[in-house]
């Protein structure tokens, strides 16, 4: 298609100093971004309450670290060009007539392809690991029903105990059977990193193994009308003995 490279860039030697300076900027930016990647996203996401959330947080960390040198390179060249190659006002001459440099383009494409393959493999491995809870024997089954604008829960194997808040025993795999009475809602246990839509007429599944005691947030993540913002409740992860007590108090049996 085009003529490439039409004119070689003769004074390549002169630019060696440019490479070094850009290299330093790149290194500094990379270090800053890696530090940011290690600390900031996972701190914002808060302590994980399940292996799934732990996997998500490590993904965020690893992807951020992997992206750091790439972002740093783009920004380093951009910043450097604004310092070193900035023209004071209207340029009085043209730059070198470089129409392309095949090796750079090929390297760039190859590196981004390698990164892309890495992301994919990482993602597939992670998908396999977070879905394994569903296959555990003897999971606790919880039916989750979304109705504008309240979540309700029932425990079919525990005598159909019903509740407006979610109670889960520690360290036991849970499978949620999620459906909706009306529009699409999205069942989201924030600190456990699980989410699946509640669709009218079908049952979707998601699973998790809570491994942290405490009270966590259940939110609706799909705009569902007037009170969408208030379609929230609490998820309590309790010791198995306390869970049994709670079930019994509510007229059920384990």
């Amino acid at each position, binding site marked *: 298609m085009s003529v490439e490279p039409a004119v070689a860039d003769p004074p390549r030697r002169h630019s060696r100093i440019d490479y070094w300076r850009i290299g330093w900027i790149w290194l500094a930016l990379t270090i800053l971004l890696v530090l940011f990647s290690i600390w900031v996203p996972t701190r914002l996401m808060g302590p994980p309450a399940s292996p799934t959330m732990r996997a998500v947080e490590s*993904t965020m960390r690893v992807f951020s670290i992997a992206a750091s040198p790439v972002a740093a390179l783009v920004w380093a060249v951009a910043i450097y060009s604004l310092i070193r*190659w900035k023209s004071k006002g209207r340029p009085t*001459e043209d*730059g070198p007539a470089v129409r392309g440099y095949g090796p750079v383009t090929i390297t*760039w494409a190859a590196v*981004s392809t390698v990164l892309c393959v890495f992301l*994919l493999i990482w993602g597939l491995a992670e998908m396999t690991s977070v879905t394994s809870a569903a296959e555990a024997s003897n999971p606790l089954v919880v039916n989750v029903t979304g109705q504008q604008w309240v979540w309700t829960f029932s425990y079919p194997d525990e005598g159909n105990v019903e509740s407006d808040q979610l109670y889960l025993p520690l360290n036991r795999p849970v499978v949620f059977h999620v459906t909706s009475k009306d529009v699409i809602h999205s069942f989201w246990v924030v600190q456990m990193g699980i*989410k699946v839509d509640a*669709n*009218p007429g079908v049952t979707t599944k998601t699973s998790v193994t809570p491994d942290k005691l405490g009270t966590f947030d259940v939110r609706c993540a799909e705009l569902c009308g007037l009170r969408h913002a208030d379609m929230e409740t609490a998820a309590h992860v309790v010791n198995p003995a306390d869970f049994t007590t709670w079930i019994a108090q509510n007229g059920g049996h384990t």
Partner: protein
Amino acid sequence: MTAAVISQPAQPHQPAAAGGGLMRRLNVGTAVAGGVILGLIGWLVAHSLLQDDDHGSDQVVLVTLTCWAVGFMIGIGAFNGPIGWALGRDLRREDELFLAGKDQGISRYFRFTTDHKVVGIQYLVVTMVLFALGGTLAMLIRTNLISPHSHFLNPQTYNAIVGLHGLIMIVATIIMVTGPFGNFIMPIMIGARDMAFPRLNALSLWLIVAAIPTLLSAAVLGGIPTGWVGYAPLADQAPPGMDSYSVFIIIFAVSSAVAGANITTTVLTMRARGMSWNRTPIFVYGTVASVGLAIPAFPMFMASQILLQVDRTQGGQFFVASGGGSPWLYANLFWLMGHPEVYVILIPALAALMELTPVFSRKPLFSFNAAVISIAGIVGLSVMVWAHHMYASGWAPDLNGPFMLTTEMISVPTGLLFLVILGTVWRGRVWTTVPMMATYAMLWNFIIGGVTGIYLSDVPADYALHGSMFVTAHFHYTLMGAGLTGAIGALAYWFPKMTGRMMNERAGYISFWLVQIGFNVTFMGMFAVGLAGQPRRVVTYAHLFATGNLVSTIGAYTIGIGMLVLLYAVISSWRHGDRAPANPWGGKTLEWTVPNPIPLENFEVMPVVTSDFYGYGEEPSTGADGEDAREPVHAGAPAGPAAAVVAAAPVEGEL
């Protein structure tokens, strides 16, 4: 006079196809009158016939809004041509010149004018009005979210505003580059005298103008409670404002199809002699890629709204699970449009930045082939990624892996576009004008938008982040940080050519910094609350998110002030800025060879292209003073027989 008629027996007196007196007085005023009259008639008829039906109110709204749109298009004169043909009349040269707005001064901007430059300006104004509307709504949203329980808006108003803001902004960003610059600049850039189908060009513009009031009518019809996506079955349940949404989308889809066919045909058939594909500027590629992608995408959206209207007005069950339908059908149709659509927005904005970067770096575009291949790659992949919006929907979980693959593959061609720009500024003579600063802002913002997109492409991470403010922040970084920034760069770059005046540089810089700093503050705050678990589209939220939201609101006001400064810069410079020379930036593309103001058919003599337009540094430097004798184009080529033919031939067909 009589003698003249007699001497031309083959040309009997023929009434003007564009009509006589009345037909020539049609303008936006008669269009509104036509729309109101026909809308009222439609309302009266529908109200008396349909009111008692179960779906009566929706039917009345549908009929009324459709009648408004048809009446508006009659009133603007959109049907004069087809009616003329039906009556066996053809356009005379003077009709064509009249339609093109010859010698009509400012009034041609308020009429069904076919001149592509007029249409471009009209698109620019429509885009700015839409941004003003959508931006005002954004300020209302952010004001409401300034504290967890601000009660500034009640939940119903809030939901309506969220939906309207989203849809207005999406439409504004879709047309913001291909509308103003694709219509005004692109035909000149390829050396054409107008678009291939000038009347379709005017049609596409006026369809959007007709459609905007239908969308705004949602505000008084109960609002759009669904957000801009219009997800069913919430849309089945929604008040009649949802019908406004459907009618708007259907008209807009027709408009985009018309515009897409027109721009594609223009580029395929009307490039100047010698403008082979490897000499065609990258902006032209970007424009064609964008509208070409819109051609298959928007019919999906239109189909979804037709099905929705069957549900709403006829009791259909397309999206009603209990009636055998499926909400997933809507989601699939929507995202089959929705994901190509983000590239409809992004590609032309990035292409405009790639077009102006060589000018302000005084270097050829780095690796033109890679740029073209990347655009093609993005176009190809973008139609295969839609279900990454549905990872958490429960629809086909087995497809999550393949969609993760295609989604992550898009990062390869997108990454190459960064290389093209970095390679172009590399050792260039970087002239940091406002348009060039837009390129740098895009490099900053789009990296953040892209990396956060990679988190969302990962299935487990998306389970955690989907439906949260993180997603909102991510797509604002791409559509606003890269897309709108690119469009503002394009506006600053082509402003001298489109208005004949230089844009106020000082105000431009002030606006640039306010907008970019405000933007990053706003959406960094939004990333933070999204990671912490704040859902999207909530009118109230837990105190845990208070700080991040306050930061976002402060940033949003900063953007708002910056945009007002930009608006001031545009209006004041347009009215009394310094007169611009024909080529103020020293660009090499064809639009800089025509004088200001641009004559009606752009070129006195049709240009012949002998090289591409990126030959910076390959010929003695020009110093970019606008008086460059070494243009790569022999615009005033000696009038050899071939050139004469080229110059004379298109007159009939092109107006």
